[in-house]
């Protein structure tokens, strides 16, 4: 067999379907913390992502009105823009922020809800997250939700109608990797909508581990933006997500404590 003759389906399934729409990558990338908009764009293109998160903030009145806008570099025609509620600490602010974002983006419904608990941990405030999710869904939003890695809360959010469950793997921006694979596995096992690890990925192996657990996708920002070479790290993340997905589908060998020679012992020339 040549590489071109791989059986049908052997290297597919790298797409991601959310709320009935299919995207060409299982990697979602944030736009914060880059050196400038050009680097933001270059990293995003290198990552192969289709979905790009942005946040919503007040315009600086009277200053630099001709300065470039983020959306000029990652235009909504080229990427799906996923507005988030970063910086919101209660349900009311999160709902208002996404209503503003929806108007800004011409009415598109897909959004990323995150309601934070405190500035030290940026852990989600789950009671407020549930409250905001309910209000947003009622208002017609398609809610992808940042949440704790608690299967009970994840189930509540899914039952409510969230279109993707996005538990943290470790603290936002910490780069600490996948700290509780068991909880993530419980969530993956029970959830019918996509499960996307959101937060904590630090390097390519973390993304691969998330995908090997059976996640449907990974969302990251700092791991790419704060790498020494963000463009190269974006390439690494693209490959890691694909590698992890293929490894998950291929099914890993069982672990064993004893060695098992790969070369047969019989017939050794002595």
């Amino acid at each position, binding site marked *: 067999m040549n590489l071109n003759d791989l059986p049908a389906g052997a290297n597919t399934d790298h797409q991601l379907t959310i709320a009935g729409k299919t995207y060409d990558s299982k990697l979602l990338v944030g736009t914060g913390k880059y050196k400038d908009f050009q680097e933001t764009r270059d990293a995003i293109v290198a990552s192969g992502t289709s979905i790009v998160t*942005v946040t919503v*903030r007040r315009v600086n009145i009277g200053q630099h009105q001709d300065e470039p806008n983020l959306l000029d570099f990652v235009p909504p025609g080229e990427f799906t823009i996923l507005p988030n509620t970063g910086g919101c600490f209660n349900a009311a602010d999160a709902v208002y922020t996404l209503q503003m974002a929806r108007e800004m983006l011409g009415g598109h419904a897909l959004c990323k809800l995150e309601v934070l608990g405190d500035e030290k941990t940026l852990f989600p405030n789950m009671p407020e997250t549930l409250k905001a999710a309910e209000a947003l869904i009622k208002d017609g939003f398609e809610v992808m939700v940042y949440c704790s890695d608690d299967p009970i809360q994840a189930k509540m959010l899914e039952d409510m109608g969230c279109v993707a469950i996005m538990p943290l793997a470790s603290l936002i921006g910490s780069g600490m990797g996948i700290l509780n694979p068991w909880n993530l596995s419980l969530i993956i096992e029970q959830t019918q909508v996509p499960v996307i690890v959101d937060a904590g990925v630090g390097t390519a192996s973390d993304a691969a581990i998330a995908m090997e657990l059976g996640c449907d996708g990974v969302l990251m920002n700092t791991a790419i933006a704060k790498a020494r070479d963000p463009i190269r790290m974006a390439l690494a993340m693209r490959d890691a997500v694909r590698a992890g997905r293929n490894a998950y589908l291929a099914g890993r060998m069982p672990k064993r404590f004893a060695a098992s020679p790969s070369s047969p012992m019989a017939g050794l020339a002595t």
Partner: protein
Amino acid sequence: MNAIQIELNGRPHPADANYTLQELVAKLGLSGKSLAISINREVIKRSDWSNRRLKTADRIEIVHAIGGG
């Protein structure tokens, strides 16, 4: 024309009475940009900017997209 005082992105800001949101946006040099605007936390659709007039003490917020994760 009478001047009124509004709050714009958290700061006091003078405006002409009877200004529409559209006129405010133009005066700020923000026409044609990707924005959203609220008055007193009510999101105002772009199509309504030209018939929504400013009133004294209105709290206006104008937002745009910036980098975030």
